[in-house]
């Protein structure tokens, strides 16, 4: 029943080799990179794959998918491969975690094994790797072999960048495609297309970790910082909760102007404005803390932060981010100005009820007083306070 079938592979070799781009799939907007301690370094997320068509995926239902009508021919039936004896996979007598390979998959990989064993570095082997990658873009050894061939043939690398872009757009959360991209860009010594590429990916998923990592690498390697802060501004205008963009803001400033006094002041104002829009979102609060950490005078030394917080608090705002930030401000001031400790600790105590659901102080008020007095009189004030807050 399962004899030679005509099946389609969306971007296979044979003829569709140019810049035809397979449909760009939409990534989901989450940060997950499926920490691949998990998966070596592979892996798209399976759950995503089930919601979209991937090259080489189950072919039974792909005959009528309306793609360019290209017909798949098995390698074993191709004249130009007649000189090669395919090498089957050897999984041993009692394999575990087997995969139900399709016939087309086994055919491609049988020929791949054959050319690898032969040490063949040729154009046709290059095309073969493209089919192998289309069927499993997470197979890092195929990518390594492909790079070996490209090197050997002195292939046109601009064309390789196009192929790589297509692969990235189809597999935006796959480690191998991004790594390949980086190697090719390094070989070319030209990072001019990288910012644009990552922007395409961010337009589908503004938090794609791979793309951010790639962008930071390109910015650093090719010194492309001009305009980066404006780009981050645009992303934050689109979504002020985009933690990746806040992180990029911190990165960009640290690599360019640095956190000078003026920059800190500017960033504090910028972040305060953002917080007013989304007081319950943690990202700008974290960034604010990150910015003022660069200030030699500590958290409390920047402008009117305390008054600004106090005003929000008085207006009834009780976001846990506001309350913990106020506690940080108080702690910082107490650390620097021991004479303020009695009055500020009293204030901490008063707010204990309000922040009780965020930070667990000892349960009874008596215990709290003892604990806080202990902190006040200790040489290791911050240490004790941290202990209390965490106990």
């Amino acid at each position: 029943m399962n004899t030679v079938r005509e099946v389609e592979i969306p971007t296979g070799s044979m003829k569709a080799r140019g810049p035809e781009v397979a449909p760009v799939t939409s990534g989901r907007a989450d940060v997950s990179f499926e920490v691949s301690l998990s998966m070596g370094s592979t892996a798209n997320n399976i759950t995503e794959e089930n919601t979209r068509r991937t090259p080489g995926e189950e072919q039974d239902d792909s005959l009528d998918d309306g793609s360019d009508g290209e017909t798949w021919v098995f390698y074993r039936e191709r004249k130009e491969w007649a000189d090669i004896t395919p090498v089957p996979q050897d999984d041993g007598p009692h394999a575990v975690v087997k995969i139900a390979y399709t016939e087309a998959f086994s055919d491609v990989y049988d020929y791949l094994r054959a050319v690898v064993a032969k040490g063949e570095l040729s154009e046709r082997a290059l095309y073969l790797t493209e089919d192998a990658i289309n069927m499993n873009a997470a197979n890092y050894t195929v990518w390594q072999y492909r790079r070996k061939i490209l090197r050997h043939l002195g292939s046109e690398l601009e064309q390789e960048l196009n192929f790589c872009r297509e692969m990235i757009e189809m597999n935006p959360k796959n480690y191998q495609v991004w790594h390949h991209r980086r190697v090719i860009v390094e070989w070319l010594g030209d990072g001019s297309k990288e910012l644009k590429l990552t922007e395409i990916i961010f337009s589908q998923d503004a938090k794609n970790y791979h793309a951010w990592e790639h962008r930071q690498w390109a910015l650093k390697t090719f010194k492309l910082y001009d305009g980066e802060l404006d780009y981050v501004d645009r992303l934050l205008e689109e979504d002020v909760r985009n933690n990746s963009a806040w992180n990029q803001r911190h990165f960009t400033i640290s690599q360019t102007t640095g956190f000078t006094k003026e920059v800190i002041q500017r960033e504090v104002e910028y972040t305060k404005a953002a917080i007013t829009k989304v007081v319950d979102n943690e990202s700008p609060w974290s960034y604010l803390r990150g910015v003022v950490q660069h200030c030699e005078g500590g958290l409390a030394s920047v402008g009117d932060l305390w008054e600004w917080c106090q005003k929000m608090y008085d207006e009834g705002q009780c976001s846990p981010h506001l309350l913990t930030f106020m506690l940080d401000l108080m702690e910082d001031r107490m650390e620097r100005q021991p004479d303020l400790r009695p009055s500020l600790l009293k204030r901490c105590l008063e707010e204990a009820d309000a922040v009780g659901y965020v930070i667990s102080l000892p349960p009874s008020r008596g215990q709290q007083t003892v604990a806080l007095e202990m902190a006040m009189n200790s040489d290791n004030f911050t240490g004790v306070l941290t202990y209390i807050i965490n106990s």
Partner: protein
Amino acid sequence: MSGGEYPFLRARHVKYFRRCLQVLPFTSVTFDTSRMAVLYFALSGLDLLDGLSELDIKERQHIINWIYSLQILPGNDRDEQACAGFRGGTTLASCRGKSSCDAVSQLDCGHITMTYTALASLIILGDDLSRVERPAVMAHVAALQCPDGSFFSTRGGSENDMRFMYCAAAICYILQDFSAINTTSATKYILNSMSYEGAMGQGTHLEAHGGSSYCAIATLHLLGKLDSSLSRTQILGALDYLDTTALRQFVLSTQDPITGGLAKYPNSNPDGLHTYLGISGLSLLRKDDLKPVDPALNISQQALSHLHQLHKNISKNPTVPC
């Protein structure tokens, strides 16, 4: 499913992992080079579910043999040893017999994550690690460390980051030989990866992330550098802060009531990774009568005791390989 309490579908998850050990559908083909990792998720998951007894002695032995069959056994040549370790699958394994050319050995290399998951799987199955080529595995780990302290995954070229650092630390801990790691540069890399958010990214300046923070902290722990590097109370020992009931309900809401297994989100398809990590998380919360897990090595505490026993045996008799 919506609302109410979700029951924990233990028996179905046992079956799910049993199926993972046999055959995965073609939609899982991206795991073709990571089958060892899938094996490990299934075995460690079965262990936490107290379901390893489902595998009879013969089946266990077959699995152990399969794992060892993926170990690369190099000669004494240092370059060859750098390409040693365990593979994650057999994609290129059969090329070796067909050719003597170096091209194959450079492509058919061990992978650091597969080496870690192979060793962890062997421990879970009660193996004594006596067939592990220790010098070659150590040469493989040593060859993968970058000047910045982080690790590559494989000799043939890969990205380098915190994930592979963790795998290196786990391998060295299991084999009780830290000579392959420059721990000073590794620790420096980890601390440089701490972002303003107070947690770690995959590298310097990258966004802090739960996954990389876990890898970073577990690495410091395995290297014995945790207390000297980080203030423990800031990051760890904080399980009390979690709303464990809500967490459990979320994890259970991702169960697939028909096939078993857990997914990343409710109403999506389960996979071995999320099934294992979900169950492992419940074990950390001491829920659902699961065996306790060791959070640093990601094996049950029972499997860890077995490993510690092996460690005692080597220290008693250093000539016996661990």
